[in-house]
């Protein structure tokens, strides 16, 4: 059964003329191999960072990924602070935690919306993104922008949370929690979603450890790691919260972990706002001495890792950036082999890659003839959901 078709991922990134990024080889309905080619988003950030000052590099790393827009800067400043032994004021640590958890909320809600779209639940997509808006409003109130917050600096944060903003933040969080409860019931109790997602794209615990998978991708497979607890930073060791893990490692487990993590994030933000200490937000460091430093942060997708080396001048000699998706992507190759073509998009979405990287997927048969592009893949996925609904009599 070999006829080719291209599957570019769309309709939101319908780069149909792009050459392959993910090339899935299929025999009949089953995926038998995956080849990966990335680089369409490679902007040479590590090299640019070497020609900028330490203060300027923070703005560049913010734009590595739009969704993890506070995780990378926090990891970067932590690496520089680790290098030079700079202490950060307590209030700044709490503010860092608040901004990070707000980012986690908006990122997971965005994921819920996208996953809904891939499965054919377009209402979930629209509602998920609508319910993200209170979080963007809070971000705009606190930081001045909906994305790209420019909140971080070496030795503290740039802006304070004003006392008069706190009631507004708490009200919007209440709105968000109510909407999250509704979405949670709709998603986690839906029998069609159970049939659709359980047992699909399983990553076992041993494989998750061997691939060094991170974040919800690893936690859903039973690997109990979370940088916020294991390598505490900001104010995470000063508030009470739980690490959410699953056991099955399938797409459903990953969805459950993300949804339950949102509740923990709301709790962390409330505790941080409650305990926010008085004081300064900036320790005003002067020079960065020679040395090496490492910063680790739990982004919504997993651990962000930054390594900075300095020779005493104002620019880094080397700035290594490792986003969590870099370690999680290879698990996609492993989990999609043996699965059907109609499940390929949701298995990819389950590792929550930075969206720009889900743009280009190509299906070929075993004679390297192109089969379909992503629009077709998403359509196949949505049709599978419809078929299941009919079979279940819903």
């Amino acid at each position: 059964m070999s006829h080719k078709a291209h599957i570019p991922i769309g309709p939101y990134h319908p780069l149909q003329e792009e050459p392959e990024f993910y090339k899935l080889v299929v025999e009949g309905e089953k995926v038998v191999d995956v080849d990966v080619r990335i680089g369409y988003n490679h902007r040479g950030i590590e090299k640019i960072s070497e020609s900028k000052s330490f203060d300027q590099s923070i703005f560049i790393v913010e734009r590595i990924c739009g969704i993890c827009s506070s995780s990378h800067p926090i990891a970067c400043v932590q690496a520089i602070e680790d290098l030079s032994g700079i202490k950060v004021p307590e209030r700044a640590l709490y503010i860092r935690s608040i901004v990070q958890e707000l980012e986690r909320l908006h990122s997971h809600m965005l994921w819920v919306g996208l996953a809904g779209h891939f499965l054919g639940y377009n209402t979930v997509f629209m509602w998920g993104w609508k319910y993200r808006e209170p979080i963007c409003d809070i971000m705009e109130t606190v930081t001045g922008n909906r994305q790209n917050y420019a909140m971080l600096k070496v030795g503290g944060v740039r802006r304070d949370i004003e006392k008069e903003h706190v009631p507004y933040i708490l009200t919007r969080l209440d709105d968000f929690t109510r909407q999250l409860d509704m979405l949670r019931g709709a998603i986690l109790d839906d029998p069609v979603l159970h049939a659709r997602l359980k047992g699909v794209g399983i990553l076992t615990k041993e494989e998750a450890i061997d691939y060094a998978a991170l974040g919800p991708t690893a936690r859903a497979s039973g690997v109990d790691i979370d940088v916020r607890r294991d390598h505490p930073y900001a104010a995470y060791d000063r508030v009470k919260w739980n690490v959410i893990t699953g056991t099955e490692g399938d797409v459903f487990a990953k969805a459950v972990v993300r949804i339950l993590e949102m509740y923990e994030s709301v709790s962390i933000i409330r505790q941080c706002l409650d305990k926010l200490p008085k004081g300064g937000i900036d320790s005003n460091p002067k020079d960065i001495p020679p040395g090496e430093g490492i910063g680790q942060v739990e982004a919504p997708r997993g651990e962000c890792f930054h390594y900075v080396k300095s020779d005493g001048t104002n620019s880094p000699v080397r700035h290594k950036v490792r986003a969590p998706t870099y370690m999680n992507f290879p698990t996609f190759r492993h989990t999609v082999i043996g699965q059907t073509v109609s499940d390929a998009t949701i298995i990819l979405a389950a590792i929550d890659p930075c969206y720009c990287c889900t743009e280009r997927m190509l299906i070929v048969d075993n004679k390297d003839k192109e089969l379909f592009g992503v629009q077709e893949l998403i359509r196949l996925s949505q049709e599978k959901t419809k078929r299941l609904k009919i079979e279940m009599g819903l």
Partner: protein
Amino acid sequence: MGFKEKILTRSLYVFHVSSGSCNNCDIEILDCLTPRYDLERFGIVLVGSVKHADALLCTGSTNRMCVPRIKLLYEQMPKPGFVIAWGACGSSRGLFKDSYNTGVPLDEIIPVDLYIPGCPPKPEAVIGGVVKLIDKINGKKNK
């Protein structure tokens, strides 16, 4: 502007292409379609094929691998068509202009009709920008 262009302003079909972006702009594009801003009520729709498009919406800092593809997409877009450069990266490559992997700015590859600066541009800025484009097509002076 001719008759065909004026007709397009009634309902603009937009094809989105990203040439190496951080995704913030792409998310803001999707945000414009969600219930809060809902650009679809103005008739603006994202299409799945460039051959159905009236406007090409470009984000991203023109990664070298994407440059030939952007040219190809522009040639395939039926004319008259418009090009919208979205964000700081689309307008001028933004922070990434010194990178070894970014090509020339977008307006040196294809002619650009509308720049919407911002990092990322807020949905309100996008709506304002699209209104300016429509006014320009209809021959009204920008205030």
